[in-house]
């Protein structure tokens, strides 16, 4: 059942983004920014945590989940460290994904040459 919920929720979030791409003049980059900020906002409203419990990876894998990770990191850090936590929490919580993206991208840049995009 978990798998069905993950599939449906993740699909729905992507579907919404596709509608934004097709029906508005928003570019993908702007939609991604919008999604991350939405994730932070929904986390702050207390909506996203139950959604993660319901949909699992369907909620954490889309970019709104990245926003939620930033949010929950800041929340925890503010509770333990006070005001400093505002600055340390977000990136600490999301460091695994960001560092992995940097390290692997550097590796791929070493291994692969760019190819013709118009094939």
């Amino acid at each position, binding site marked *: 059942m*978990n798998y069905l919920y*993950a*599939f*449906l*929720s*993740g*699909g*729905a979030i*992507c*579907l919404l*983004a*596709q*509608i*934004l*791409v*097709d029906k508005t003049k928003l570019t993908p*980059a702007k*939609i*991604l*920014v919008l999604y*991350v900020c939405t994730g*932070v*906002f929904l986390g702050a409203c207390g909506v996203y945590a139950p959604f993660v419990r319901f*949909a*699992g*990876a*369907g909620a*954490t*894998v889309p*970019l709104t*989940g*990245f*926003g939620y990770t930033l*949010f929950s*990191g*800041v*929340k925890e850090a*503010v*509770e333990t460290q*006070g*005001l400093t*936590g*505002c600055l340390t929490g*977000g990136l600490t919580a*999301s460091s*695994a*994904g960001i560092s*992995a*993206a940097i390290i*692997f*991208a*550097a*590796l*791929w*840049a070493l291994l*692969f*040459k*760019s*190819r013709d995009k118009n*094939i």
Partner: protein
Amino acid sequence: MDKNSYLKLASKREKTSPCLKNCLFAFLSGGAVCLLGQAMKDLYALLGAEEKTAYSLVAVTLVFAAGLCTGLGFYDKAARVCGAGLFVPITGFSNAVASPAIEARCEGAVTGVGSEIFKIAGPVIVYGNIASVIYGVIYYIYLCFAG
């Protein structure tokens, strides 16, 4: 030609993308990526990872896989069909980091790869961070008053 008639002409010439088909592909591919993520999360949990760690590991694995597919040239081809289904999940973030890095390879290690790596994904981190810091300050003030 005045502005209005130009806009009319331009919107007539704009490529109209078949919305329904795009949406279907976005739904199916986005759902599939999340399904894969859920399967991985359960696998990592089975291997003894804590819930939070398991989700981080899922993100790392998906970032790895999507970067590899970008390098091999599959990802951009698939993304052309699947649209938002492949750029909204964390795999799209990975693609957005790996793709300019590979492109910039010929421009050198520092001014090429080093500076181009966050050309597309940078704004996501910048605004995500700003939003979370704003939330943090509000939450801190709230905690001060709430006790």
